[in-house]
Every structure is written in structure tokens, then in C-alpha cells.
């Protein structure tokens, strides 16, 4: 079993530094899904596969990963949020090969990923189409348009991850429209759906590999249960860390917590 904790800690520290230097919010969102992104971008995605980050507000998680993988330089990464950057708060179009689509408005990634999966089917190519959504994002009607199309067209090469942290814009997802990312709903449409700990990279990889190999005509959904702000106790499951930047003492405390949790 590979030990992922060092990388999980290292990339979290990088996210904290980026956001602290930039005085930027959306920290909780990136800490919520960084482990899912490590699973997809570092371990699952092959050259013929594609990945769309539909929850574009977690861009910093992609940026630190692509920096780790060598596609984004340190200088570029340090320009995050600054004037003249290629790395704005939400991904920009046509800047990096591994960010094929600029996202930021919710509900766009799944239709695009569905189109990619359909294209691969038409060409009889075996590339997988991965997409990462947030649970709040499944409020969007396009989720349901695309989901039904994917099932009707038997797109078993589509693998949807939902970063399910239970929080959205200004409340708990269950209190707003109800749980639109509920397993039962996606099951009933015809997805092959599985729930998993969204911070367990090894488990996510093995499950994703297993269901990706099943050419059963069903599109796949991995509901990754996560905690927003994972790794920093005063941020965990707190809605405000969708928005707040850190002050100096918070940054120091958050970094200490990450070091303690992932490095010791």
C-alpha cells in the first residue's frame, strides 16, 4: 500500500501558502477535494484520458498538482491571483494542456465530460472521461440533462467524482434543495454509483480502476465523502472557509496543523 500522506500534506501546505500570499478565499474548497484530484491526476489519468474540473473554484488544488507534476512552473504558481497571471481564481481558457476547459460557473463540466465520453465512443477509443463536481453543483439542471444522456447512450467510459462535503453557497446542501447528490437518485437514473471516503486516495484509486474496467454500459459515479477544509480543524466543515482568506496567525496555525497531521 502506497503511503500518500506526505504528498497530501505537502500539497495542502502549498495550497495554504498560495492562498495566504494572495489573501484569497476558497481555501476550504481546495482542501476538500485535493485528495480526489491526487487520485485522478497523479494515479488514474492516462495520456488518452481527460479530466475536467467542474468545480472551478477549487482551481488552486489543480494548480498545485500540475506544479507537482511539472506542467506549471514555480514562477507561474507564485503568480496565482496576481495581475498578469495565467492562474486566476477560476481556471482560464487555453493556458494549460491539462486544463482543457475554463470553468467557474457551475454545471458546465458534466456536459463537457459527457461529450468527450461520447466522442471516445464514436471513435471507438478507450480513453476515460473524468470529471470532478461539487455536491452543491448537482443542483444545476445540466447535471440531470447530462446524466440522462450518459445513461441513454451507455457511456461507461464516463467517471464522475462528486466532492461531497455537504456544504454549498450559504448553507448545508440538505437544507437547501435536499441532497441532489444522493446515491439513490443517481442509482435510479442508471449510474453505477459507489460511495467512498474522499480523503482515502488508495481506496478511491482501486475503486475507480475496478469500475472503470467494467464495460457494462453504465456511466460511473464515485461519491467521495469529504470534509470541507480537511486537515485544518478550525476550517473543517465550516461554510465560511469557502470565502475567507487567512490572517497571519491563522495561516501559521493552519500550517502547523497540516504538518502535525500529515508529517508526523
Amino acid at each position, binding site marked *: 500500500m502506497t503511503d500518500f500522506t506526505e504528498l497530501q500534506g505537502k500539497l495542502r501546505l502549498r495550497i495554504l501558502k498560495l492562498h495566504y500570499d494572495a489573501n484569497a478565499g476558497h481555501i476550504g474548497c481546495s482542501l476538500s477535494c485535493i485528495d480526489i484530484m491526487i487520485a485522478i491526476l497523479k494515479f488514474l489519468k492516462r495520456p488518452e484520458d481527460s479530466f475536467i474540473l467542474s468545480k472551478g473554484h477549487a482551481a488552486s488544488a489543480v494548480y498545485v498538482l500540475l506544479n507537482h507534476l511539472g506542467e506549471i512552473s514555480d514562477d507561474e504558481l507564485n503568480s496565482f491571483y496576481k495581475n498578469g497571471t495565467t492562474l486566476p481564481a477560476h481556471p482560464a481558457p487555453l493556458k494549460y494542456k491539462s486544463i482543457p476547459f475554463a470553468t467557474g460557473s457551475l454545471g*458546465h463540466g458534466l456536459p463537457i*465530460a459527457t461529450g468527450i465520453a461520447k466522442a471516445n465512443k464514436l471513435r471507438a477509443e478507450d480513453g476515460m472521461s473524468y470529471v470532478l463536481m461539487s455536491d452543491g453543483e448537482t443542483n444545476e439542471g445540466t447535471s440531470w440533462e447530462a446524466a440522462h444522456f450518459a445513461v441513454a447512450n451507455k457511456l461507461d467510459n464516463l467517471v464522475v467524482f462528486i466532492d461531497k462535503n455537504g456544504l454549498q453557497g450559504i448553507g448545508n446542501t440538505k437544507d437547501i434543495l435536499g441532497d441532489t447528490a444522493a446515491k439513490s437518485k443517481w442509482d435510479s437514473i442508471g449510474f453505477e454509483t459507489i460511495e467512498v471516503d474522499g480523503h482515502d486516495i488508495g481506496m478511491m484509486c482501486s475503486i475507480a480502476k475496478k469500475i472503470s474496467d467494467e464495460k457494462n454500459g453504465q456511466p460511473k459515479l464515485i461519491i467521495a465523502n469529504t470534509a470541507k477544509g480537511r486537515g485544518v480543524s478550525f476550517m473543517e466543515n465550516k461554510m465560511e472557509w469557502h470565502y475567507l482568506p487567512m490572517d497571519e496567525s491563522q495561516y501559521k496555525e493552519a500550517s502547523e496543523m497540516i504538518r502535525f497531521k500529515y508529517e508526523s
Partner: protein
Amino acid sequence: MRKHFSKYIEQFAIENDDFVFITGDLGYKALEGVAQNLGNRFINAGVAEQNMIGMAAGMAYKGFRVLCYSIAPFIVYRCLEQIRNDVCFHDLPVTIVGNGGGYGYGIMGSSHHTLDDIACLSGLPNITCYIPAFLEDMNSSLDTIFANQRPAYLRLGLGKNIPDTLSVKEYGAIAKGSNVNLTIIVQGPVANNVLEALRGNKHSTKIDLFVLNKMPVRSLPDELRMSIERTKKALVVEEHITVGGLGSAISLLINEGALPLQKFVSLRAEGYPNGLFGSQTYHYEVSGLDSKNISKQIDSFF
């Protein structure tokens, strides 16, 4: 125009295996031949236009040339953000085809009319809007769209053949008078109303008539600029509202170019000023886009 369009696509489908056609569950008695020729590259996305455009972007990213088809209002307004963010931002070869632009769907009512589609789309990055006036320039519009491999919007209307005595070219003069005293600029199939007005008008030989079938207009074509300089009078006719339409674009270019102008009249879709509904011909009359009013306006220049 729709049948003509289908015929073109049927042939294009045979010759290009990187071409995909997606319909938003429309095209009864029009797309059957297209569906047959394309096989599994003919896709019905269902009554789900936003997903249709998003998917088209994904497929275009994977190397397909994608055409999305619906009636004009459904494919423009519902999915404006998908067109902007997914297609235009990424400069992808997706062609949005809207049938029955303007008042084309007549008595179907305002939900089915498209009076401000060009305003919505032509300001987006990387996209060009094509509004052919005649069957002949629909073919050339499609030729250009598929050669360019960039975002495009094609607004189809009630097409007629261009009269044998005239020839049409992109941004071109289709009729040139002698001792001209008026420049008319028209967009889309409402050009037929202008031609009808000219047929019965005693000033018709003193008029330059231009068809501009692409938006946005970034500069005045030389021939048109010279005509306006000569006549100092312009009449613009379009089946679209003023905001974001041909008239306001031409007016800006005339001002930026400091062209001398004595009189400028814009005939355009006025919406529903009397709050009543009818056929396309009825709405033409209410907006003053009918041949009788166009002829009257022409007279006012002389």
C-alpha cells in the same frame, strides 16, 4: 431554407467523417435524410439544449466538427452561457444553427421569435454570426463556417432564390444604381421585402443595395463606404432589434469613419408595440419591415 440546409448537410455528412450533428429533439420532416447519412454521428440530445451545447464543446475538443440544431430561440437564449464559456472561450468548431430567426415562427408567438439573438451572440469572443438572405448565400455561409473551424451561429429564415438579374456575395453590393442617391443595407431574408419594394419603386435605379450577412461588422467594406460617401444617405433594414443589430453597428462605423451623412433611417424589428400577435408578414407590417413601408421610406430620401 431548412430543406436547402438539410440537403447541404446530407452531402457534407457523407464527405466528412469528423462531422457530428446534434439536434435538440427537433427536425421533423426535415432531418430524416441527415440522420440516415450520418448514422451514429446523428445525435438527438433530447429536450436539453444546455447539455447539447456543453457536449458539443466536449466533442469538438476531441476533434469533431459539431453542428447543433434547434429552433433559433431555444438554441440561443437557454444556452447562452454554454455558448460563451464552453464554445467561444475555447474557440471550438461548433456551429449553432437556429431555424426560423426573427419573426419566422409567426403566430407561434413571442417564445418562438428571435429578435435579439445577434445582440446576444455577436459580442461573444471568437464567434461569427451568419444571417443569409437567400438560398444561395446560405451555401456559401456554410462553406465558410466549415472551412474556418471556429464558433459560428447560423440564423436560418424563410429563404428565397436570389433573382437571376442579381448576384450576391459576402458584404457585397447586390444591386448598383447609376446617379445613386441612396445606399440601402439589409441583413437576412427580409432582403426579399427590400427587393419587392425596389421592383415597384421609381427610384430603384438610383439606389445601391448591399447585403451584409455576417455579424459583427468590424469595418465598413470599401465598396459600401464609398457608396455612403457618394450618396450621404443610408437606409438599414433588419429583422432584429436596434440594440446590438446591424443599424447600430453601421451607425457607429459611419461615425468613427467621419463619413458625411445627411440622412439615416433604420427599419428594424420593433418587438410587439401593439401587444398583438400574428404571422411573420403581420409582424413585418407592424414593424414597418413590409415592402410597402420600405418603398415609402425610400421615397422619403428623394
